């Protein structure tokens, strides 16, 4: 049987090196021209626990995580027990012969003969690589790059384990058809959602980033910290999230494009700062990487339950935009856009992502970083009126923003209600004008809202409505249903606020049936659509067990 794609799951305990081999395998696949979607599922601990690294790879573009496993790499026996039932009819299991499995789909590998203790994961890497059709050279090349400089001895053991594994596997007759080779693979990057957010931020001109570690947002900080010196930016680990957002506001006020990132709990601490950004009209990009809550929840799993929280966070009334990337490419482009919006409208702009997308490696075409112009903070002091008024009333609510210390003009920003010159006031007429001024900016933000993406027939039998990271799964499920003759369309939101009903009302009304799909328990987007447009989506497919929505999940739920 020919296959165009493979879904392989590596399972084991933390500390067994499964992420290492997952990464090397994913990179080798991308370099050999395959498309991938990685799903990482792990326990909130450093050692032990059951962790998995799943790669869905294909010669054609793959867009979604899958549940059905073609190759199960069991680094421990528990992985066998937990995932045996997910294996496809022509799938195989790669496991240590020491596990004593008598299963006929198992490839029982004498790992102890192939590699020394400590290098068993590399042997497993060689076995899988060989089975799916990667070459030993390509994996060895990726491995060298991945490990970087290491001592001679370890490097040799790695190479030995790899080539023993390749030799052993080639000598077996394994009934698993390899992936077709991709000729002339285009140049691809392998990157996860968080790395793309970090890169997008830098391309937009990020100069200051502060954070307090919290899964699944932390890797944004790790990436930015690694590049800070080369990119002339500052990354500071703050004493808490309250400090993180206030530092970012201070830096932004002084002219450095700024960003913070966190997850729900940390964002809860930042909320007063969101309101401060709005009141002082200070640009800031806030990334919220969702994980299951309330409270500490499931720290390392995924969910889409903070839409309402981010939408309503902050006391008082003020405009905001919420962008929800659905792919790694969108993580990059929407972060860039968030900086533009923050600078133009001088306030808080959100990126709402989640653990699944944050940790999901994909093959992406290189971004055009050479031609994206970074935002330029502040306006020209030469063309400002004197004395300068930070909150001058204007038609669109946007006041020229000067930066302190750059000219002789004095810049006064205030969290109290203030006059045009920034000083605190209790003049109630001024108060009214200022509320209106701030809200006027919302009109501009609304006019720029990215419309949801409609795919398929405009008058379908079934319209699937989704947002954020579920994009790939929904598109995949829809295309599978179309193959079986169903008239299915999708309407996907990558910006969830402002929600402009004129952009999508016709689609909702034109469908025979509408179903919403969300990674939460209460259907938050559906609720928001109802509030904004009056349209009631009666059928909802929800998932809140901490795992990402998959095409299989959607199809199962639809047939219930």
């Amino acid at each position: 049987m020919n296959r165009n794609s493979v879904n392989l799951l590596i399972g084991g305990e933390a500390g067994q090196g499964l992420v290492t081999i997952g990464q090397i395998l994913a990179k080798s696949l991308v370099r050999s021209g395959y498309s991938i979607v990685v799903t990482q599922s792990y326990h909130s601990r450093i050692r032990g626990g059951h962790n998995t690294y799943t790669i869905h790879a294909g010669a054609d573009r793959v867009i979604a995580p899958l549940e059905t496993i073609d190759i199960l790499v069991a680094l421990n026996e528990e992985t066998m027990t937990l995932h045996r039932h997910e294996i496809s009819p022509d799938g195989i299991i790669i496991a240590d012969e020491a596990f004593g499995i008598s299963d006929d789909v198992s490839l029982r590998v004498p790992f102890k003969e192939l590699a020394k203790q400590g290098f068993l994961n590399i042997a497993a890497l060689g076995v899988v690589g060989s089975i799916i059709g990667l070459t030993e050279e390509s994996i060895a090349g990726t491995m060298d790059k991945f490990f970087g400089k290491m001592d001679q001895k370890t490097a040799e053991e790695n190479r030995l384990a790899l080539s023993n594994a390749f030799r052993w596997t080639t000598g077996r007759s394994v009934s698993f058809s390899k992936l077709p080779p991709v000729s002339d693979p285009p140049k691809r990057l392998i990157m996860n959602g968080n790395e793309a957010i970090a890169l997008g931020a830098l391309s937009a001109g990020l100069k200051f980033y502060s954070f307090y570690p919290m899964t699944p947002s932390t890797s944004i900080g790790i990436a930015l910290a690694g590049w800070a010196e080369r990119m002339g930016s500052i990354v500071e680990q703050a004493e808490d999230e309250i400090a993180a957002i206030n530092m970012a506001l201070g830096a932004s006020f002084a002219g450095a494009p700024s960003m913070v990132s966190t997850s729900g709990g940390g964002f809860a601490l930042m909320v007063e700062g969101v309101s401060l950004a709005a009141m002082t009209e200070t640009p800031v990009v806030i990334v919220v990487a969702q994980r299951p809550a309330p409270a500490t929840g499931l720290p390392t799993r995924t969910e889409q339950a903070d839409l309402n929280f981010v939408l309503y966070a902050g006391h008082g009334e003020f405009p905001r935009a919420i962008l929800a990337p659905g792919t790694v490419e969108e993580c990059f482009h929407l972060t860039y856009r968030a900086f533009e919006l923050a600078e133009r409208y001088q306030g808080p702009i959100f990126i709402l992502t989640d653990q699944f997308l944050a940790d999901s490696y994909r093959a992406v075409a290189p971004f055009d970083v050479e031609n994206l112009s970074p935002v330029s903070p502040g306006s020209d002091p030469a063309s400002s009126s004197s004395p300068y008024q930070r909150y001058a009333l204007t038609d669109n609510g946007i006041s020229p923003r000067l930066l302190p210390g750059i000219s002789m003009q004095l810049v006064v920003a205030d969290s109290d209600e203030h006059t045009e010159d920034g000083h605190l006031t209790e003049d109630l007429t001024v108060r009214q004008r200022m509320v209106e001024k701030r809200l006027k900016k919302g009109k501009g933000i609304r006019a720029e809202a990215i419309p949801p993406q409609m795919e398929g027939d405009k008058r379908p039998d079934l319209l699937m409505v989704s947002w954020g990271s579920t994009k790939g799964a929904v598109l995949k499920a829809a295309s599978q249903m179309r193959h079986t003759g169903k008239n299915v369309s999708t309407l996907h939101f990558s910006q969830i606020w402002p929600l402009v009903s004129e952009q999508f009302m016709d689609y909702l009304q034109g469908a025979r049936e509408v179903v919403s799909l969300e990674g939460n328990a209460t259907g938050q987007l559906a609720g928001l659509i109802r509030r904004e447009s009056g349209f009631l989506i009666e059928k909802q497919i929800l998932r809140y067990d901490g795992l990402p929505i998959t095409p299989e999940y959607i199809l199962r739920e639809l047939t219930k």
Partner: protein
Amino acid sequence: MVTIADYGTYETAWCPGCGNFSILKAVKEALTASQLEPHQALFVSGIGQAAKAPHYLNANVFNGLHGRSLPVATGAKLANPRLTVIVESGDGCNYGEGGNHFLAAIRRNIDLTLLVHNNQVYGLTKGQSSPTSEEGFVTKAQPGGVASTPFNPVAVAVAMHAGFVARAFTGLPDHLSDLIQQAIAHRGFSLIDVLQPCISFNKVNTFAWYKKRCYQLPSDYNPADWGAAIKAADQWGEQIPLGVIYRNDRPPFEEHFPVLNQGPLVGRDVDRMMLKEIMEGYA
């Protein structure tokens, strides 16, 4: 030539006779004596009666949230180290709501001056206890008297080897102005805890109460001597020492960022070739 008139005069929202007036005057005098022009200074404050002070002079101002002035100031200073950053807020703001930031700012040793108007009470919210209120201090919120022991900011700062730690009293405005000048000149974190009577809500620690107890450290006192500083910092009650209690020359936080050697972050271009190189590391 900068004159005190450059810093302007404004109507205030303070009670007549409040210690804040002396602090405001001392600040303006110190800025003038330091020959800083208004646009070179950034005042960051929180919320409280003290935190309104920056509105009453000409300078750049970021009047933020209650307790959160230090992080804002830290971000602004890192973005543009050329700004002279002065943080002005009350005891509630800095030692209560913003306590964690106080500790972090000392650890960082970021180059800014923290001027705490310490009236040992929450003034703006009408007289509840603050972290520096004395044990037994009776308020409407603490009718049985404050049950906790007071926070000693000076002792904490000295214990943490803060860069510059001083105490002043509004009854000695010239002394205060001199300390502010020294703090501005100091490269690193500077704390000036200013004892300030609150005529409306603190009937215990009155002007006379402070006047009787405050004394200036003798000229042979050596603020570089940490052991002596810890002793001086711990002194409270019948005798309260004023002056520079402790100082050292730890390098300021900004020096740990090589990127700042090329000047402020503000207005700096994005090195797109470098960005491309970083991106291609993902191939």
